């Protein structure tokens, strides 16, 4: 896991109150939703908000690509690298 991926995994744990997990418990290619980590649609909204706040991402809720970007920690990291604002806090 690179730094950005660790960062995103930490953000997922913190934002979604996954107190029973540590960063290393989430594999970069583990599906986040459904049968994988077990996140649901409310988590998706919450996570989109957190990504927006931390990385300056703008995620359109009707975007057909959103589902693909949110598949795993790795796909989220790629998405942040390509679309995030570098200095966003």
């Amino acid at each position: 896991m690179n730094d950005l991926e660790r960062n995103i995994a930490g953000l997922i744990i913190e934002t979604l109150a996954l107190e029973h997990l540590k960063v290393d418990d989430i594999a970069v290619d583990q599906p986040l939703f459904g049968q994988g980590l077990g996140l649901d649609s409310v988590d998706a909204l919450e996570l989109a908000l957190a990504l927006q706040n931390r990385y300056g991402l703008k995620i359109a809720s009707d975007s057909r690509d959103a589902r693909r970007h949110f598949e795993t920690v790795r796909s989220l990291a790629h998405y942040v690298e390509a679309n995030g604002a570098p200095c966003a806090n």
Partner: protein
Amino acid sequence: MIELAIERWRAWAPGIEEPAAWAAWSAAPRPLVDSGEQPSCDFVPPMQRRRLSRLARIVMHTAWPMCSDDEQLPFVYASRHGETTRTFAMLDDIGREAPLSPTQFGLSVHNAIAGQWSILREQRGESVAIAGEADTFEHAIVEAAALLGEGAAAVIVVLAEERPAVAYDGWIDDVPFSYAVALRVSRADGTAAGPRWRLSLRGNTEAAPSAPGPHALQFVRALHDGAILDHPWKTRRWTWQPVP
């Protein structure tokens, strides 16, 4: 007038959980210090438990043993103030012009905890979420009596309050510490075990002062000493008395 059998009860307050602790508190009631303690609710899987607020945990902890796994019972959730912690967090977001958390928003409504109970305890029957004044507890009992009158075998009633944020001091003065009381009630003329109590209401014309402390906890006291309880509130005067 309502007559009920109290088949089971369970209460929670900071540091007072077990029946012996409630018996001791009932014999010598004292204000409790609320340091944010909450029940662990280990019986709820972590992925579901993460969505339980402190108030929700207190409710689940007290209500869980009121029914068995293969039983379906109506549920009355009563709280005068509800999810003040979630509401206050959202007001703070609004004040900072920050977007609202979907989770906070979705779970701040008054019937959210009743919904979580239904999902977690796999209860598919009626549930009611009510908020009243200082006599919310008595109104919850009226609701339970109505459900029993409709034919329910028993009803679970939970009265729960969480100590609100400091910002509410001077506005909310009847939650000295967080607490919950869960009761399993049934018709007094049935075969259920447990003490029987009568609740009656008349107009409060005597300008009697309101009873000190939360009504629901005073009822826990009464369950121990069997004394008649007088609960005046504004124009209403509720009386609880044991049925011999």
